[in-house]
């Protein structure tokens, strides 16, 4: 997965995100409650379900309840959800920090909802769309990327989905097996990158 972007100082260059099997670097991002959140803050987890998502994308909205349900199902089994909003608020005012806080309260998010203001974490992961999911598996003190992609194969309805990629991956991970389908494409809205200038 390649994301192209340019800055005024450099010519266009490429940033490649994580692939399955890579190790993710920890981050520190601001949660809607104002506190900073890092992976290292979680002492007793086996891993994480990271969700690049936002308030405004229709796909993120359609998957919102499913992301909440993932946390309810897998946090008790050692894989809590951490949601990260990657969108530039200038481009999408509905994804501004105060709107995120409103959304998290309204929907009673059981997980942190972090803002990636610099978009550095998003670029490091290589997320391109919302919602874009990453399962991280803790190995000693490292975070191995075990799955990248979408939640299931029907954005309209969880009930009508015939493939449950995250559930299948979690089932494998929790029983110590290899994840069979470890990479899918996440269809959704393009991440709204800051303009270069």
């Amino acid at each position, binding site marked *: 997965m390649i994301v192209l972007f340019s800055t005024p100082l450099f010519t266009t260059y490429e940033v490649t995100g994580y692939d399955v099997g890579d190790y993710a670097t920890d981050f520190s991002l601001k949660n809607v409650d104002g506190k900073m959140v890092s992976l290292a803050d979680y002492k007793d987890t086996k891993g994480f379900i990271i969700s690049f998502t936002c308030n405004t994308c229709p796909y993120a909205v359609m998957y919102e309840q499913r992301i909440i349900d993932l946390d309810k199902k897998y946090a008790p089994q050692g894989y809590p959800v951490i949601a990260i909003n990657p969108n530039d608020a200038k481009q999408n005012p509905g994804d501004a920090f105060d709107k995120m806080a409103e959304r998290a309260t309204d929907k009673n998010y059981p997980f942190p909802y972090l803002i990636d203001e610099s978009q550095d974490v998003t670029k490091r992961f290589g997320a*391109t769309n919302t919602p874009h999911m990453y399962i991280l598996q803790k190995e000693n003190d490292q975070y191995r990327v075990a799955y990248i992609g979408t939640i299931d*194969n029907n954005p309209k309805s969880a009930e009508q989905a015939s493939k449950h990629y995250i559930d299948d991956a979690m089932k494998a991970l929790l029983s110590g097996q290899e994840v069979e389908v470890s990479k899918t494409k996440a269809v*959704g809205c*393009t991440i709204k990158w800051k303009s270069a200038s």
Partner: protein
Amino acid sequence: MNKYFAFIVLIFLSTLNGIGQTIEVIGVEDMENLIREETGRTRVINFWATWCRPCIEELPYFEAINQSPDYKNFEVILISLDFVEDLDSKVKTFADKKNIKSTIKLLDNVDYNSWIDKVDPSWSGAIPATLVVNSRFDRRNFFEKQFEGNELENMLKDFESELNQTNK
């Protein structure tokens, strides 16, 4: 007389429903055929949706190509990834309001991972995305980006000149 009356009523109803284009709902095989078919022209297949702002912003460029005599070797097809339930309420309404002249088709298949690689293996799934394809000469180019300014025009000019070079 009755027939004549029915005709008038039909005309009246069709104005009420909007006089824009009919939007065909297609499946994955139809889409593959659109890519594969060897018509004399190069197909410019744009994937978009009414909820996708950057898609809407770049639509005028595609409309311009579709209507310009300079680009008569190109055929613009706009494939909407809106849900089929929204065909009338959103896609048709949008197309009529904006008076879209390019052919619009709605791809009714939300199992994206089953078909996205058939468009292009490099496609992440984000829209807008555009496939420029000429199957007769086995040339294609895929863009996962929003076109701005003269980018679409210039890209198509380049595509055409490469096509002409290879077929000299």
